[in-house]
């Protein structure tokens, strides 16, 4: 685990597979913070606790996101504060435009056309900012229709948290998958964190459920409750109490450090973090109902 994260160089472009408060790669985020990585470029469709923490801990120099939210628990305070103070390069995109950029990367295309972003201030800001080189108006060679061309997004390392994988990295993702597949397959390196490791025979029973085939995966990390305090459909619900506690800290620049010291820098690894976050008894209460999935 820590060895895997150690292979991520400072300044790397990492992509995270979480969405708001669902399937965040908390295991990875915590370890990146413990190892005090610097100058990271982070891309993600809709940022959640994962990226908010990385920004709060000061690891990020540039953000490429379509949005950010902790759902009803509040906004991504650290990210928004960083924008307000201009402490990092910020690229504001949309869910579909980032998905298309990852898709282009996954397909080995250097660009892809799109019909959104057009006539918006999002585009104006991209054209004035660090994203200027990644958007360009173009015409369809056949119809002449005007599109916005987007450059492909190919992260150095993509991290995704899944419910089920085998030792070879064949991954199942249950519930909606937002841009997980395109993001994972666009990346130069792919690292998976799985709640459950199953034998390959189990994967072979329903190969149509394999969203990411093993030959694309560099490493599989087995970490139950690896996305806590965010939710993993079919495994456990989000930890409302812990999310409230997090927002209490993230709200103020001077308090986020407290959270990071207590729960991340103050713990050696994810199991220790889980202990500090309430331990087995507390986690047991979050376990998903097998029928409901939450």
């Amino acid at each position, binding site marked *: 685990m820590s060895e895997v994260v150690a292979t991520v160089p400072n300044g790397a472009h990492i992509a995270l597979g979480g*969405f*708001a*408060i*669902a399937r965040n790669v908390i295991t990875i985020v915590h370890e990146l913070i413990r190892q005090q990585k610097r100058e990271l470029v982070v891309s993600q*469709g*809709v940022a*959640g606790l994962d990226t908010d923490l990385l920004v709060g801990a000061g690891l990020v120099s540039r953000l490429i*996101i*379509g*949005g*950010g*939210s902790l*759902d*009803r*628990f509040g*906004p*991504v305070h650290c*990210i*928004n504060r960083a*924008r*307000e103070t201009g402490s990092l390069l910020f690229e*504001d*995109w*949309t*869910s*579909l*435009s980032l*998905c*298309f950029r990852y*898709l282009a990367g996954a397909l080995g295309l250097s660009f892809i056309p*799109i*019909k*959104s*972003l*057009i*006539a*918006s*201030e*999002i585009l104006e800001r991209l054209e004035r900012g660090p994203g200027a080189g990644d958007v360009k108006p173009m015409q369809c060679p056949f119809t002449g229709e*005007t599109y916005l061309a987007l450059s492909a997004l190919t992260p150095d390392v993509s991290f995704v948290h899944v419910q089920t994988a085998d030792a070879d990295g064949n991954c199942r993702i*249950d*519930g*909606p*998958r*937002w*841009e*997980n*597949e*395109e993001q994972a397959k666009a990346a130069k390196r792919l690292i998976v964190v799985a709640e459950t490791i199953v034998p390959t025979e189990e994967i072979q029973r329903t190969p149509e459920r394999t969203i990411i085939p093993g030959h694309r995966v560099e490493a599989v990390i087995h970490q139950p409750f690896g996305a806590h305090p*965010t*939710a993993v*459909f*079919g495994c456990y*619900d*989000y930890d409302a109490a812990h999310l409230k506690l997090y927002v209490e800290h993230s709200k103020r620049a001077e308090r986020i450090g407290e959270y990071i010291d207590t729960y991340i820098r103050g713990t050696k690894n994810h199991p220790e973090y889980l202990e500090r976050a309430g331990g087995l008894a507390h986690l047991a209460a979050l376990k*998903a109902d097998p029928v*409901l*999935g*939450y």
Partner: protein
Amino acid sequence: MSEIRATEIMVAAGAHELKDGETVVVGIGLPQIACFLAKATHAPGLTPLLEIGVANMRPKDTPVGLADSRIFYRATCWSGFLDVMGMNLHRGIVDTGFLGALEVDRFGNINTTLSREGGRLRYFNGSAGGNDVASLAKRVIVIMRHEKRKLPVAVSHLTSPGFVGGRARAELGLRGGGPHRIITDKAVMGFDKENHSATLVSLHPGVDLEDVLANTGFPLQVPDVVPLTPLPTAEELRLLRHEIDPKSVYLGGVG
């Protein structure tokens, strides 16, 4: 039956805008509640889609947001952005995009990115799928609280385009039909076919015109005759209060 809440009038008005058989991309909160209400009443064949990759969900518990597993319970399809936003929305088959907003201006431009309260810049969630939906859906319905500062002449940040600068959508290079309705706790607004500027469609019962005009930041076109917004029926109220949002997670306050 207890007094009808503004939120209940809003979601009923939203539901009445949706036709049976339509495909609708819904945002979290009142849009989703309105969609479920329509589906439970006159539009059983409606297909609600969530940008994250969900079709036709039938939640039994009220979710706290788009990433809450509760919202995609009993869906008939789980996919991702590429299917819902790409192969449905960008494909051009989404009839209605149903959104919330921080600010909406006279041309239906939407801001979900930032606010400038007392000169201080504050950032919010940004677009996520909002800009994509506003750009590509055949028509867009916004549901929000009716406040002067939330309905300015021009949004402080144009996150999602309406009839930008009062121009026609084709002129802007956009495929989607653009803004169709703004539904607030006071009224329902639409857009003028000619100048694309906001016009009053109906007033909610008990709300007078002066109140609306005083609380609207942009010049609102008012027709000679302004009908009343139909109240939710008893059955609609029963569904909202006992089945769709029994804990009043969304109907409690104005989203």
